């Protein structure tokens, strides 16, 4: 057998986690009616801030916190531009990505290959040694479980709480929400910052846990795949998890097929996660009823009161 299913499952969950974190954050942002295309930029900022701080402090937890702060700081720029200065969200998001890639590369000069602290794993050795279930369920670092809990938390908050209701109201009809007395701009800024922190945490996971190194441009489109996952998921948290695992599965599988030299061209394997993301997007969007109904109605629209 060229690919071992157990290690593939373990790799799938690891590969999926950064994208999952970024996508669940972006889902909240889009539910509030804001389209932030800067996920790639926020992720790479999180990756570099997480790596630098984890290296100097010797604490992975501090690295994760720094990754969140880096992503949120960049998101704050986006919030100022789009919410206070009413700039176009598509252009601002692109600016965020271009600036983030440059700034992260600048911060990271000279950090490639430096050592990192080990990451805490919550489950004891005995559980990890159970055949099959041990490695798949219990062997991961703490952030993998945090990401799963975050998906559940976002689902509960969006569908079962008052905060979630207000957030969705802002995303579906900001004028009505404003008329009811909700602070549209403040709620959106909070959502954007949450999205930035999630993307940053995803980036920090990528550099500190998965790759355990800093490489320029190491996110390699993960932020854009996270954006595609939100559409794929029809803005539903559990489907984001499904999409992230699908993507993680393909990415992990293609790496193994490359190592096994199965005769499929390497370029095709390299491109396969992106190609399959596109194919899945096409299938989801061509279903007219579903795509049109689930997108937040105010997505990408500028809110401005003259009153």
């Amino acid at each position: 057998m060229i690919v071992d299913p157990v290690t593939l499952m373990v790799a799938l969950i690891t590969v999926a986690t950064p994208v999952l974190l970024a996508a669940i954050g972006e889902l909240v942002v889009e539910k509030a009616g804001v389209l932030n295309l800067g996920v790639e930029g926020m992720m790479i900022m999180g990756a570099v801030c997480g790596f630098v701080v984890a290296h100097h402090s010797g604490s992975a937890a501090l690295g994760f916190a720094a990754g969140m702060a880096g992503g949120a700081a960049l998101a704050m720029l986006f919030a100022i531009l789009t919410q206070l200065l009413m700039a176009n969200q598509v252009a601002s998001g692109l600016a965020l990505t271009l600036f983030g890639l440059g700034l992260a590369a600048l911060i990271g000069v000279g950090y490639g290959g430096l050592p990192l602290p080990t990451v805490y794993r919550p489950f004891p050795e005995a559980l990890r040694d159970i055949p099959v279930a041990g490695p798949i369920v219990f062997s991961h670092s703490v952030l993998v479980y945090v990401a799963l809990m975050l998906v559940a938390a976002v689902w509960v908050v969006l569908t079962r709480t008052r905060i979630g209701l207000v957030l969705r109201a802002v995303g579906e009809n900001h004028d009505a929400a404003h008329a009811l007395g909700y602070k549209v701009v403040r709620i959106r800024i909070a959502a954007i910052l949450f999205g930035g922190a999630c993307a940053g945490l995803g980036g920090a996971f990528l550099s500190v846990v998965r790759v355990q190194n800093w490489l320029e441009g190491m996110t390699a489109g993960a932020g854009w795949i996270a954006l595609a996952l939100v559409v794929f998921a029809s803005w539903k948290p559990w489907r984001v998890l499904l999409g992230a695992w699908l993507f993680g599965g393909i990415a992990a599988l293609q790496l193994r097929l490359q190592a096994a030299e199965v005769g499929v061209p390497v370029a095709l394997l390299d491109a396969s996660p992106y190609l399959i993301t596109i194919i899945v997007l096409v299938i989801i969007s061509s279903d007219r009823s579903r795509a049109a109904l689930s997108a937040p109605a105010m997505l990408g629209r500028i809110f401005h009161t003259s009153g």
Partner: protein
Amino acid sequence: MIALEKRPQPARGWVIGAPLLAVVLTMIAGGIMFAALGKDPVGAIRIIFWDPLFSEQFSGYSRPQLLVKAGPLILIAIGLSLGFRAGIWNIGAEGQYIVGAICGAAFGLAFWPSTHPLIFPGMVLAGLLGGVLWAMIPALLRVYARTNEILVSLLLVYVAEAMLASAATGWLRNPDGAGFPGSRNLARHAGTDNPELIAGTGMHWGVLAAFVAVIAAYVIMTRHVLGYQIRLAGQAPRAARFGGVNAGRLVILCMGVSGALAGMAGLFEVSGPAGRISIDFNVGYGFTAIIVAFLGRLNPIGILLAGLLLALTFIGGELAQLMLGIPAPAIQAFQGMLLFFLLALDVLANYRVKLKRRVAA
């Protein structure tokens, strides 16, 4: 408290003033960034914006580079600006640029070592078609499957990069290159080269194409019904639909034109300044062109000027790297900053800033 009042029309003065002020603010913020890197901020800004053009030591090399670098930026940005005006977001020009370069180079290499005069025109055509082909994927998917063209065009950049890697290390690799990656040198072979047309100016066929594109875009946007349809579709999509504008046709047309121009830019680069297909011959012009398009206000003349300015930051950036040891990514951050300031200042063009007392709601 400060309040913003929407202007009925964008303020004329600020439409032109905002990019200029954005450049000044970027210089200040960039200076702070360089100071934080421990470099002399004033010296760094002078090396980036002044020395490439006016210093006796460097201008001999740098001045021709201005057109060499501005050519692809302007060519790509002109194509993007048509779509951006119509609300069609092709942000994968980098991918179309790569595929155009691969197709054009493959055409030239297929006839190697012939020096027939029709080979170069054929390469340009192949590059153009390659770019169109790559741009048609997001365009047709948007029209027929309602798939978001932003995501598809961007994701295809990574697919194009994988193709480039396989071309450079495999099917386009120089057979006499001792197994090293990279194709034969197209620029040093009569028949496939894109030469400097006027010695010492940096002017090559791609720069000429960029100038032609500027003029053509200006005529289309101001004089042709297509320009009217593009502006209408961007500003009032519903009105455009009632006015008989075929939205799908517009998407295919705008994406096709931007793909064609990006593909040609790729071919001109690979047969001229870059010289050959290599894994990393592309230096991100497709992404920087997005900044050029916005900084030029999606206006052909504006794009011409913005392209020259961003070309200057590329050249000045290389010089600053050489002279002051400023890391290369600093320039990318610098260019991103420029777009930030521009977008922020746009508020002044679209809104009137008013001071008024807060009243109880």
